[in-house]
């Protein structure tokens, strides 16, 4: 019952200082549950019910001696039960008004005796025995939190009293399990009730946001701005992605207040809370809850911003000052600074400051005592805080009247105090233990921390220190880890290794554990171990560090306490496992700038580069060589992290890293290739001596493996890195010339990628995929297209150009990619290839242009902007190569869709040239030719011109072709041409009607329509003719 009582029940403090259970529906149902549990206990669990409590539960009862009947000795002074424990003490003792009870069977009896008053008895009992578990089971079991309990818990106890003892413990353990189960049941039940009560709906949220927006519009100095992260609103009124809606999220907001940084807020159906910074598309971690849950937006803002609170109160809209009774989710107990008393209404704002403070730098939970954050509704009880007034007054002044900067200064004064308090109780708790090692418990001072984060505009250091939400009770892990660290400080190497191994069993990727290690001073010990000579201790320490350094705050602390120096030093160890682990840890830690700089300053880059020296691609590696390869992989990982800083790129190059990286490209292992290629890309892109790096890659035959990576389409991360690196490297002419075959591979992968992109797009339409996943292939595509563009500029090799143009064409079939191609001026490049003397190049370029023109956003304008482009195209109609002619016709058909361009084409004499081609017997050409003619008809007198040039008669013959594509485009062309009467006559003469009627029976609707249209035109003409004959 521990958890449900401490966390779910609603406690309040009376003026006399004792804590009471509130009269709330939730507490009521909690009590009822416990009551029925106790009532049934003695009948359901006979043995357990007789178990004697370690300490009696005692409380002021309303029962009197006369209430007791048989089984009890009733005297003047009180009542004693007949039943006694082993030492002859009565299991129940009443000396009014106090009652002492030592077993569940007696408890059950009391509950039965008390009749209607039984609920009251349970309430008082719980109020006066704040930790019943402790009393019932004793400190050993009560603190176990249920995980590791088994019979072996008690095994170390003396073996002398064996039998009795074992039996006794068995019962005790079973009792413990019963109680924990009960606890779980209670919590679940309460949760259910809670979730029924608390529900926000999208309309309410929307109304509130609209209201705030109006305030902003009226310029009432409430907030600077407020907006949604997504403009798209689902039919149900939510804006969160579907998969988040499943979690209850409704929408995300970015709010720009006057007095602090932007706020990122999640509105979910359970309430409103701060998130990890959802801007547009974010990684999953962004969705995590970073604050308490507030019932609505205004409450959240008011509690966070004095400025807002001050101004919003001036507003005329009704601020729901008092949350209704049911909003019981407020009862989040917060470990306090000794001032968790309920504030009065007038002090609401002041208290906000404290709250904010607490959330920013919650001091470590020191002792066992807890204070409970009051439910806001209690403020209407008008209770004044008995202590801590002075501090509050001070902060209230600053928060309301002074500028935000000053507020912060004040806050730190306050924070420092609380911290001192916390430290004090911490050290007193640890007692003698902390004196063992030289360094004091970890955490950087908040003040220093804050100044850092503001001075360093680094991606990670912006984040202020915070605790996970569960700062109410420190989790069991915390105490276990604290114990381990205590032993770690005083253990020899054998003990150290054992403890490190035990520590590895914790979930080190979990923030609770990570921060627990830091908070109990574990990081210093772990780092200290790195400076010893004990290889095993170092390995153990690094195995832990490499995991917990996944946490931003841990990374920062490691750097703060100078841990990187020790880690970097290990890179030179002769022990391979150590080197690999150290490098892996660096890869994690060096994810922010200060750390990367530190690595460089301790000449870590040089050492990391040295790790790369291995034989990556032998068929049969010896165990030793395999380990070398693993070391190299870790080294590459670390370098990858480090290479995000420009100076480090330089350092990597200077240390001779590029050739080594180039060599590693031959490795067959993807987990090696990803960091290697990643580092290469970083270095190739921004190194000062750009060209040098690129040439180095080339010299060490780095491109070849890079390109072969393109086959590995399954790994998008790798693909993105590889294509990027190829692009960067292809900026050097020599590379391209040497590896002319590259484009083939690029083409192939580009086509595959295109498929991926479409695939991803479908998912995006559903808004079910997170931004990250979508970003990746796009990045890949940009790289691919970029690389292609580079290749296209070099006209040295015909085959290369053909492939490049094909690739661009393939990419261009996707509209998104077309945007990229357009940005990179790809169309101009391809167009310029039309000037190439090779027919292959000409045709492939023309083919590539077709999808480009089709999918470009403003195709007409784009084509017009290419000076002399249209003339070039028209002139190519004079080619003798059918493939070129077909491709040019196809391109013309696309261009002619734009009327202005069609006019220009006409001026350049496209009509006679096309007409001249009509005698061809090549079906492929016929198809595109007819298409081109059809599209060119739509301008001015072109229809007549085609007729005059004798294009109609041959086209009629095309209908006899067996190729349906030819038939289709011909029918379309004939339909266009039939709008000219003379053409109709020619067609009719050539016997067009019969094949057209056959075509009408086709399944293709377009074809049917075109054929029918054509026949109609001919028929209309005939009718007109007959009418003319009749009337004239």
């Amino acid at each position, binding site marked *: 019952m521990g958890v449900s009582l401490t966390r779910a029940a609603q406690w309040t403090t009376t003026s006399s200082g004792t804590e009471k259970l509130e009269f709330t529906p939730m507490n009521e149902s909690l009590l009822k549950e416990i009551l029925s549990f106790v009532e049934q206990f003695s009948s359901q669990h006979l043995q357990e019910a007789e178990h004697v409590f370690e300490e009696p539960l005692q409380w002021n009862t309303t029962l009197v001696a006369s209430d007791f009947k048989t089984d009890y000795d009733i005297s003047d002074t009180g009542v004693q039960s007949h039943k006694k424990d082993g030492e002859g003490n009565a299991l129940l003792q009443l000396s009014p008004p106090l009652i002492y009870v030592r077993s569940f069977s007696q408890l059950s009896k009391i509950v039965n005796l008390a009749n209607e008053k039984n609920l009251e008895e349970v309430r008082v009992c719980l109020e006066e025995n704040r930790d019943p578990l402790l009393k019932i089971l004793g400190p050993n079991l009560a603190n176990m939190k249920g995980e590791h309990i088994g019979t072996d818990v008690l*095994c170390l106890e003396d073996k002398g009293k064996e039998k009795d003892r074992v039996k006794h413990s068995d019962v005790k353990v079973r009792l413990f399990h019963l109680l924990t189960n009960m606890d779980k049941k209670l919590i679940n039940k309460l949760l259910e009730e809670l979730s029924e009560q608390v529900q926000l709906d999208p309309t309410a949220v929307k109304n509130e946001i609209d209201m705030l927006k109006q305030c902003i519009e009226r310029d009432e100095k409430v907030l600077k701005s407020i907006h949604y992260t997504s403009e798209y609103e689902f039919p149900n009124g939510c804006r969160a992605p579907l998969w988040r809606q499943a979690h209850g999220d409704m929408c995300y907001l970015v709010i720009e207040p006057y007095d602090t940084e932007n706020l990122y807020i999640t509105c979910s159906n359970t309430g409103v809370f701060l998130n990890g910074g959802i801007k547009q598309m974010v990684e999953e971690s962004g969705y995590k809850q970073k604050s308490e849950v507030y019932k609505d937006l205004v409450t959240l803002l008011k509690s966070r911003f004095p400025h807002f609170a001050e101004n919003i109160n001036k507003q005329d809209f009704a601020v729901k000052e008092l949350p209704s009774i049911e909003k019981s989710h407020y009862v989040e107990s917060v470990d306090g600074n000794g001032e968790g008393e309920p504030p009065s209404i007038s002090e609401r704002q002041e208290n906000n400051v404290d709250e904010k403070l607490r959330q920013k730098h919650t001091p470590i939970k020191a002792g066992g005592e807890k204070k409970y954050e009051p439910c806001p509704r209690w403020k209407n009880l008008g209770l004044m805080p008995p202590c801590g007034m002075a501090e509050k007054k001070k902060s209230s002044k600053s928060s309301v009247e002074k500028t935000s900067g000053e507020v912060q200064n004040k806050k730190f004064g306050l924070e420092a105090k609380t911290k001192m308090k916390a430290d004090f109780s911490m050290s007193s708790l640890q007692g003698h233990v902390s004196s063992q090692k030289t360094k004091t418990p970890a955490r950087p001072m908040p003040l220093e921390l804050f100044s850092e984060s503001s001075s360093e505009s680094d991606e990670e250091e912006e984040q202020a220190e915070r605790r996970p939400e569960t700062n109410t009770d420190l989790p069991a892990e915390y105490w276990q880890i604290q114990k381990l660290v205590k032993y770690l400080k*005083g253990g020899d190497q*054998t003990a150290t290794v*054992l403890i490190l191994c035990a520590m*590895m069993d914790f979930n080190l990727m979990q923030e609770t554990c990570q921060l627990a290690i830091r908070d109990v001073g574990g990081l210093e010990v772990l780092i200290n171990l790195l400076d010893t000579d004990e290889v095993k201790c170092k390995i153990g320490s690094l195995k832990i560090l490499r995991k917990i350094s996944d946490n931003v705050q841990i990374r920062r602390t490691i750097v703060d306490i100078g841990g990187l120096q020790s880690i970097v030093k290990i890179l030179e160890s002769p022990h391979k496992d150590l080197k690999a682990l150290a490098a892996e840890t660096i890869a994690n830690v060096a994810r922010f700038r200060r750390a990367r700089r530190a690595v460089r300053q301790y000449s870590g880059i040089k050492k990391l580069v040295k790790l790369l020296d291995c034989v990556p691609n032998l068929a049969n590696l010896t165990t030793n060589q395999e380990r070398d390869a693993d070391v190299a992989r870790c080294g590459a990982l670390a370098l990858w992290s480090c290479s995000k800083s420009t100076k480090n790129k330089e350092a990597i190059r200077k240390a001779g890293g590029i050739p080594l990286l180039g060599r590693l490209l031959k490795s067959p292992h993807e987990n090696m290739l990803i960091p290697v290629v990643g580092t290469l890309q970083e270095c190739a892109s921004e190194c000062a001596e750009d060209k040098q790096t690129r040439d180095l890659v080339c010299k060490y035959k780095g491109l070849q493996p890079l390109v072969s990576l393109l086959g590995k389409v399954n790994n998008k991360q790798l693909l993105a890195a590889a294509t990027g690196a190829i692009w960067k490297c292809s900026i050097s002419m020599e590379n391209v010339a040497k590896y002319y075959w590259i484009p083939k591979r690029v083409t192939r992968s580009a086509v595959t990628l295109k498929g991926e992109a479409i695939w991803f797009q479908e998912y995006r339409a559903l808004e079910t995929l997170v931004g990250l996943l979508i970003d990746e292939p796009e990045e890949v595509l940009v790289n691919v297209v970029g690389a292609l563009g580079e290749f296209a500029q070099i006209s040295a090799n015909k085959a290369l150009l053909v492939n490049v143009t094909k690739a661009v064409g393939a990419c261009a079939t996707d509209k998104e990619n077309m945007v990229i191609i357009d940005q990179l001026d790809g169309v101009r490049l391809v167009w310029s290839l039309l000037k190439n003397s090779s027919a292959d190049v000409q045709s492939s370029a023309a083919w590539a242009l077709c999808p480009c023109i089709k999918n470009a956003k403003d195709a007409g304008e784009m084509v017009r902007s290419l000076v002399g482009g249209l003339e070039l195209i028209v002139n190519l109609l004079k080619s003798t190569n059918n493939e070129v002619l077909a491709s040019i016709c196809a391109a013309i058909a696309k261009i002619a869709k734009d009327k202005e361009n069609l006019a220009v084409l006409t001026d350049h004499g496209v009509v006679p040239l096309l007409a001249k081609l009509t005698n061809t017997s090549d079906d492929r050409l016929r198809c595109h030719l007819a298409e081109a003619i059809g599209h060119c008809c739509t301008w001015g007198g072109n229809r007549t011109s085609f007729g005059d040039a004798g294009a109609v008669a041959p086209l009629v013959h095309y209908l006899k072709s067996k190729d349906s594509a030819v038939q289709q485009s011909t029918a379309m062309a004939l339909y266009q041409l039939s709008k000219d009467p003379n053409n109709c006559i020619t067609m009719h003469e050539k016997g067009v009607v019969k094949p057209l009627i056959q075509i009408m029976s086709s399944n293709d609707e377009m074809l049917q329509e075109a054929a029918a249209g054509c026949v109609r035109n001919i028929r209309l003409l005939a009718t007109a003719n007959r009418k003319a004959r009749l009337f004239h």
Partner: protein
Amino acid sequence: MSTLSLWKAQRYRPVRLSLKMSAMNRKLIQTLAESISKDVEHFNKTEIECLIREFNVLMREPAAVGRTVNGLDRGKFRTILHNNFGMTDDIIMDGVFRTFDKDTDSFVNMKEWIEGLSIFLRGTLDEKIKYCFHVYDLNNDNYISREEMFHMLKNSLVRQPTDEDPDEGIKDLVEITLKKMDHDHDGRLSFADFEKAVREENLLLEAFGTCIPDTTSIEAFERNIFQEKLDQ
């Protein structure tokens, strides 16, 4: 075995004769090495010859006066462990001696010496797991019990003078270790428990005390015995 007894006969010759007899000695040692190398992995014949010579040298050093012994006694063996491999823990050194001394005659004879060293210096993980388990199984009952762990770990934590029960930390450490390694929850470590735990986390190989030398001292020892001897 016949070669071995041959060698034994030779071994008891007075030291001063050994130089004169070196030619014959060499021959004997070679035959001996030949036979031992069939049973011992990780060493080639030349290396075994070197180890035999080293053993002879160690045997020549004064033992307890007036006694003929057929191997290294506990004291001598511990001196070797201490001087060459920096071992200090008595319990562990006794354990190593017990593990070397397969026939439990309280002496490490030449064959035991070479076989032991083959694991001690160059053993595979499998061999080392067996070896370490044997070292830690103080009473040879094929289990490492709570008491044995406690015994081996009793000096591994700094005792707090303020602690009510100075052994509390050690007891706790034993429980932590059992929780980690005792997979069948019978309150003691069987070989299967130990092996499984070590395979999961290699660091646990020497869980209860260093009984395998580190790389540096192995290298030094091997260099000392193999190379210098070969140079002679």
